[in-house]
């Protein structure tokens, strides 16, 4: 939701057909095509409509609690400065998406999409969820606007994420456990698409990350760009200049693209996306689609995927449910291939360590997803001079993860 970028800008994608270079596109069943085209038309109109923008901004302010703070993290900064070679160790800031209503960046996108749904006259909401963060955020906006809402969630995740299932139910959503496939996020998305195909006339699908068929990657990115736009403004106010490096975890890629996109045309701003390395890339048990995958077509878009030689999709693994998906949004695939953004895998164990460090040094319990971004700091702070500024997008809070972390640390609750 920003002004039109100049031609030749890295910010002018996707092209008119919804592609980012070879990635993206609209790989959906014919039944969905007319709706996808309609959504695009409606989104273009909304983007031009000051009333839509004003309503979005107002809800972000009064309902979500934006702007979220840009927090200078003094003890983390000192900690890594102490470990870094002489003269290295940048000043570290956190963008505090964890302080949003519902505890993560996911709500930014949900507010935008439900306004679109209402604009299009749709009367039912569906969504997929893995850990339940997007499900909770969707159920929240559906409650706020009084629309019935069905959340598709893998049966295994329903079991693993009981607190979020209860939250969704409290918010009035129907949670539908999905028993097909491996019963996790990928299967929840398949099932949501199946349901959507059969209910296109009245149903709006709120996709939870910057992926899926065009125009979803674009509109999710635009709604999440509030993260980067605020960061830019807040950094100029705090430091009088732009940051030198941005770091964000990449699951489907929505918090990362929301942080990165407003800076893509600033050549001096380095960007690093952190993928879930699970038990390590060599182990084959990871969710690092760029590092360990190849381009392919799934869930409406062409993008990097974890797959075998025949193009069968392989199961992802990450300790972080929000990163546990065998693909990612198409714009990241493109930014990876163009080299504009660097992507680095972080293992479960590294993320766990960073999770604890952040709790102990800053009094902030980060989401396990965000802990992946924090876990790249040992490596990244060693590269950057001490006069430099690095921003980590703390995409969410870790309250939802305390059970997983306790189990990983061998603590009985």
């Amino acid at each position, binding site marked *: 939701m920003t002004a039109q970028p100049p031609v030749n800008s890295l910010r002018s994608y996707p092209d008119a*057909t919804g592609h980012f270079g070879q990635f993206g*596109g*609209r*790989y*959906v*069943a*014919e*039944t*969905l*095509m*007319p*709706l996808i085209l309609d959504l695009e038309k409606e989104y273009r109109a909304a983007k031009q409509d000051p009333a839509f923008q004003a309503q979005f901004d107002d809800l972000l302010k009064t309902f979500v609690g934006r702007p979220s703070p840009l927090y200078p993290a003094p003890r983390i900064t000192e900690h890594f400065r102490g470990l870094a070679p002489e003269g290295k160790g940048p000043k570290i800031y956190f963008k505090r998406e964890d302080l949003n209503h519902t505890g993560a960046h996911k709500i930014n996108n949900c507010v935008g999409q439900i306004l679109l749904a209402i604009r299009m006259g749709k009367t039912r909401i569906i969504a997929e969820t893995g850990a339940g963060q997007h499900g909770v955020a969707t159920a929240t906006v559906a409650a706020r606007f009084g629309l019935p809402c069905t959340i598709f969630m893998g049966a295994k995740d329903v079991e693993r994420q009981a607190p979020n299932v209860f939250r969704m139910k409290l918010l009035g959503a129907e949670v539908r456990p999905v028993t*097909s*496939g491996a019963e996790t996020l*990928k*299967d929840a998305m*398949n099932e949501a*698409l*199946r349901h959507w*195909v*059969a209910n*296109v*006339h009245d149903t709006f699908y709120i996709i939870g990350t910057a992926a899926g068929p065009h125009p979803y990657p674009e509109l999710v990115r635009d709604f999440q760009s509030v993260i980067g736009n605020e960061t830019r403004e807040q950094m100029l106010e705090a430091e009088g200049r732009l940051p030198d490096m941005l770091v964000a975890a990449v699951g489907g890629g929505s918090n990362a693209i929301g942080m990165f996109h407003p800076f893509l045309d600033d050549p001096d701003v380095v960007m690093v996306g952190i993928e879930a390395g699970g038990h390590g890339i060599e182990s084959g048990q990871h969710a690092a689609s760029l590092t360990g995958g*190849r381009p*392919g*077509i*799934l*869930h*409406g878009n*062409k993008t990097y*995927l974890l*797959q075998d*030689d*025949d*193009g*069968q*999709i392989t199961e992802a693994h990450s300790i972080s449910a929000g990163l546990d998906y065998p693909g990612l949004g198409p714009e990241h695939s493109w930014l990876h291939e163009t080299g504009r953004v660097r992507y680095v895998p972080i293992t479960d164990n590294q993320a766990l360590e960073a999770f604890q460090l952040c709790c102990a040094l800053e009094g902030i319990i980060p989401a396990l997803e965000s802990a992946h971004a924090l876990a790249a700091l040992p490596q990244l702070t060693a590269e950057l001079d001490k006069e430099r500024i690095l921003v980590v997008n703390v995409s969410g809070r870790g309250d939802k993860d305390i059970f997983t972390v306790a189990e990983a640390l061998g603590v009985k609750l």
Partner: protein
Amino acid sequence: MTRFETAFAKGPALVCFITGGDGDTAANLDALVAGGADVIELGMPFTDPMADGPAIQEANLRSLAKGTTTADIFRLASDFRSRHPNVPLVLMGYANPMTVRGPEWFARECAKAGVDGVICVDIPSEEDASLGPALRAQGVSLIRLATPTTDANRLPKVLEGSSGFLYYVSVAGITGMQQAAQGAIEEAVARLKASADIPIAVGFGVRTPDQAAAIARVADGVVVGSAFVDIIKQHGDAAPAALQDYTAALAQAVHAAR
């Protein structure tokens, strides 16, 4: 005349779908032909069959669990072609397995195996470049889907570059669920026929000879899938006999409809 033209010239055609690698596929295909199938659709299994209902989803997973590969599917196809030189054979599946080695590779393998046409569920006309040109260059038909949401504006786009037949998905939904009302099907087929110069086959939710006969009175072909897949699940290795019987009942209903 192409195999499609010959098959559809005889009157309403029965188009039969089964998933490759689920059960004894070669024997099952022979049973479909022996029962009177006019066109065969062989499903390429995929881990994420987004357009399929539970029956075909499970067939995909059963096939993959047995280790079915793309090479196996092409072997089934070329063996079928040797045994049945005149029956049109269509591969039906999803974009990723079809394009993972490049569309040119896939199209060449189709041509080599004697595959007449390809249905790719998740490549609409907007993304034709990902598969269509490669197939057409090899003389393999790209069979597109039209649906209840395909309006008059879109139909020419759907038809452009497609050949063999047009597959009308009669319900907005997934395979194996409810059938559309007969009146709605008749209206849709009439609308499609006005624009299309290729045969119209109607599928999704068609199970019984009665349903098939009703559709065959107006359409050029009737597609049946989940009903066969259910038989294979139920009968396992003994499926061919049951498949042949069921196919014969459907074929008789379809062929006698007009």
